[in-house]
Every structure is written in structure tokens, then in C-alpha cells.
């Protein structure tokens, strides 16, 4: 019988990290197909249309679910056309530069409490940092480069204008995003995401109840940061063709899509973590769950399910809002960001601090 090499803590954690990341990666790779399906069928339902329902095997149509699969295959086998005037190197790198920060972002989300495998304690977040919140803000900040570079490297009118618009929008809404999270740090006193979750131990200590204004600001910024409707000016198809990815096709276009949906998922998860108690199931304490199921791991998996359900709600909200609200004008967008959300965020921070100090 083969002798297994004795693993030390570091080796186990490194292997666990890679495995966890691959699991997350495979998970997020499934988001765009499913979400695109949702984004086609849901408006069809809302507008009393049928939506895609033709692709299928023989008579099994599966409600058009296979349509997105067909689209993905089509995208990969398309010819890749690069504009002659493009800056080639950056043109090829830009989708990747856009994708990497979002992958880092989603890796920093704690999906559940630690599980135990063979006596090793393995936390259910790929990256667990004490300054998790700052890390996420930093990563979102760097995420702007993908958009900026894509538009600039395509060297076309629409792409450049679209990318400038998109990046100006993203940086404008990063400030209120950052400000909206400060009250939570004030209340819970930590920057570590796992500790922020643990601090919201009961439903009434959830972020949304303790700091509702923060939630409002965060929600608006969530839509703006991902360039989604009603803030999707950067790809307003009636004026800018498609915005920063006008010149992109085939697999690189798919990468942009992936990046956008991963960012949406990551922000939805972050919203659930900060305002809705993360992986904690409402009204059921984690210890109760452990004693009920008799296993730490099963309880942890329940937690993961809870977080994913909460995140799924926000993903649904993205679609819902997209087909409900009309698009803002660019001046309105900037006005909301700088003249409404920024003062509101600052006032929110100040008021929270005053109330906390008065209560202490």
C-alpha cells in the first residue's frame, strides 16, 4: 500500500486554497449562461412574450435553456476580428485585466463558516484577510482598468467614448460605495468580512436594520458599479453601439460578459454579507444548526446555501430593475452620484458616529 506523505498545515492550506478557488471558478463560470437565460425569459414573462424556446434535442426544448449553451459555443467558434488600427497588445489583454480583479473580489467573499476535513480546519473563503473590506475596495478600484483599456485599445470612436463614460461612472460611484460601508465598520468595529458576519448574530443586528441608509446607497452603487440598467449609459446601444466592447467578438467578448456577471455576483454576495447576515440563516443560530444536523460540515453547507439564496435574490433584482426602469441620462447619473449620494453618504457617516457615541 502506498504511503501517503505527511502533510503539514501550510501544504494543506495551499492545496485547499487552490481547490476552493477552482470550485469558485467553476461556479462562477455557470453564472453567465444561467443569468442570460433568466434575462431572456424573465422579460418575456413580464412582457407576455415567449422568449427563446426553439433550441433543443428533438422534442425536448427545456424552456430555451439550451439557447445560451448554443450561444456560448457560437461565441467560442467565431472568428476573432481585430481592428487594424487597434493597439494589439492591450486589445488582447484588456478582457483579462478586467476579469482578474472581479475574480479576486469573489474569492474574498466568505461563503460559510469553517469546515473540518480530516482534522484540518478549512475556512470557506479563498482569501481571508483582516482588512477584507479595504481589499475589496482596492480590487474594485483596479477593476476600472479593464474597461478603460478596452476602449482605448480598440481605437474607435464609440469604444473610446463608451469606455471613458463607463470608467468615469465607475470611479464616481466608488466614493459613495466606500462611504456607505463606513457606518458598518463603525457599528461592528471590524474590517474582516467573517467577523462582520459573526457580529450580525441575530436578525435585528443585520446591517440593513442598523444602517438602512447605507443599504440604500450601497444598492444604488451596486447597479452603477456594474454598469447595469438603469445606469447602463456606457453601452447605451442607441447612441454608442455597445460602448467599450464595440470592437470585441468571440471569446474575448465572452470574457467581458463573464467579468460583468461575476462582478454582479460578487457585489450581490457582498451585499448579503454586509447587510443580511451573510451565511447565517435567519432565526436559527449556527450552534443550533450544528447540534441539529450533528455535523459542522453539513451546517456549514446550509450556511453556504443561505448565502447563495440571498445573493440569488439580488441577482434577480438586477434583472427585475433592468426591465422596469428606463435609463438615466449621463448628467443625471453624475448628478445622482456626486450631488446626492456623496453628501448623503457623508451625512450618514456623521449621524451614525454621533448616535453611536451618544449611546456609548
Amino acid at each position, binding site marked *: 500500500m502506498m504511503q501517503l506523505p505527511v502533510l503539514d498545515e501550510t501544504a494543506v492550506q495551499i492545496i485547499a486554497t487552490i481547490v476552493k478557488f477552482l470550485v469558485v471558478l467553476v461556479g462562477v463560470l455557470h453564472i453567465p449562461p444561467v443569468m442570460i437565460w433568466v434575462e431572456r425569459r424573465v422579460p418575456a414573462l413580464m412582457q407576455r412574450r415567449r422568449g427563446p424556446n426553439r433550441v433543443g434535442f428533438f422534442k425536448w426544448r427545456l424552456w430555451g435553456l439550451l439557447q445560451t449553451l448554443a450561444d456560448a459555443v457560437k461565441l467560442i467558434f467565431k472568428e476573432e476580428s481585430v481592428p487594424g488600427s487597434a493597439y494589439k*497588445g*492591450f486589445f488582447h489583454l484588456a478582457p483579462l485585466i478586467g476579469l482578474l480583479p472581479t475574480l479576486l473580489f469573489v474569492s474574498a467573499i466568505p461563503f460559510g463558516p469553517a469546515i473540518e476535513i480530516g482534522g484540518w480546519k478549512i475556512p470557506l473563503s479563498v482569501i481571508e484577510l483582516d*482588512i477584507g473590506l479595504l481589499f475589496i475596495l*482596492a480590487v474594485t478600484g483596479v477593476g*476600472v482598468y479593464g474597461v478603460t*483599456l478596452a476602449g*482605448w485599445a480598440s481605437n474607435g470612436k464609440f469604444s473610446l467614448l463608451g469606455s*471613458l463614460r463607463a470608467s468615469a461612472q465607475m470611479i464616481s460611484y466608488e466614493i459613495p460605495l466606500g462611504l456607505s460601508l463606513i457606518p458598518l465598520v463603525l457599528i461592528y468595529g471590524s474590517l474582516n468580512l467573517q467577523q462582520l458576519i459573526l457580529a450580525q448574530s441575530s436578525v435585528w443586528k443585520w446591517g440593513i436594520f442598523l444602517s438602512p441608509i447605507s443599504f440604500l446607497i450601497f444598492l444604488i452603487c451596486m447597479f452603477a458599479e456594474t454598469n447595469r440598467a438603469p445606469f447602463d449609459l456606457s453601452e447605451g446601444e442607441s447612441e454608442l453601439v455597445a460602448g467599450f466592447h464595440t470592437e470585441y467578438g468571440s471569446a474575448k467578448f465572452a470574457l467581458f460578459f463573464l467579468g460583468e456577471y461575476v462582478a454582479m455576483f460578487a457585489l450581490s454576495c457582498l451585499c448579503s454579507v454586509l447587510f443580511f447576515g451573510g451565511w447565517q440563516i435567519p432565526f436559527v443560530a449556527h450552534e443550533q444548526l450544528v447540534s441539529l444536523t450533528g455535523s459542522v460540515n453539513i451546517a456549514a453547507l446550509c450556511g453556504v446555501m443561505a448565502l447563495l439564496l440571498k445573493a440569488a435574490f439580488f441577482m434577480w433584482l438586477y434583472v427585475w430593475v433592468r426591465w422596469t426602469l428606463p435609463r438615466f441620462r449621463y448628467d443625471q447619473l453624475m448628478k445622482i452620484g456626486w450631488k446626492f449620494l456623496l453628501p448623503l453618504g457623508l451625512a450618514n457617516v456623521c449621524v451614525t458616529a454621533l448616535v453611536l457615541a451618544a449611546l456609548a
Partner: protein
Amino acid sequence: MVEVWFFYFFAAIAVVASLGVILLRNPVAAAMLLVVTLCALAAEYVLLGAEFSAAIQVLVYAGAIVILFTFVIMMLNLGQEEVGQLAGFSKWALLLFMLGGAGVILIQRLSMGALPPGVPGGAASDNTYEVGMALFTKYLWPFELASLLILLALIASVVIARKPTFPSRDA
């Protein structure tokens, strides 16, 4: 020992990328390499146990300042032809600098180990708290003055960039 190798790795990235910053003809490429340099330095800060510094390095430097650079480059639409050339005395200056640099590095290498070993710290831990306490107690006045600096920068940049104060030559 592993840490030292990581330090060398990121140091190499930082040096090569910063050479690219000053030598490349394309300004956007230079800006992107500046981002690489900054991120490599952030990694060095993590190795030095300065977690908070690393975070603001990426958050403010890579995520905000260089974005301003890229915006200006894209706004003025600087092509390669407008940015390429080196100044006239470049070769001699470069040579002199290289010589001086080699000399100082030699001195550095010779004096290696002359400094006392530092205070051993823990792994990168949450030092945000300590930085904050130092900033808000001992460095209270510099901190308040810093806000005045930001105010000045805000006003100055609005005044300078907003409108041409005198007629443009080529208009």
C-alpha cells in the same frame, strides 16, 4: 527564507516595470507598467508586515492616481509621436546616473549587515488599528493640515484646468 525570495521576485518585477515606465514610447503602456510597479511594491509592503500601507497603495495609488494619468492621456489623445523622444542630453545623463547608481549599490552591498537586525514582528496582522491610533493621537495636527492640503489641491486643480485664462496660441 521563503520571504526573502518573494521579496526578490517582487523587487525584480518592480524594477523591470519601472524601467519600462521611463523608457516606453507609448504613454498608456507606461501608465500600466506604473500600476504593475505599484502593485509589486504593495506586495513588498505585505512582506514587510505593513498590511494597511499595501491596501492604500493599491486603493489610492493604483486605483485612483494612475487612473487620473490614464484619463489625461486619453483625454489629450497623446499618440506615440507626441511622447516619444528623449531629451537631448539623455545619453550622458543616463550613463552618469548608471555609474553613480552602481557605485552606491556597491557601497550598500559592502555595508550589508552593518545595521542592527530589526525588531521581529508577527505575520501580517491587522495593523489598521495601530496606524489609526498613531494618526489620530500623535499625528493629529499633520492630519488636520493634510485636509487643508486636499482643499488647496481641489481648488487649485479646478482653477487651473477649468478654463484657459489666456488665449491659446494655436487657436
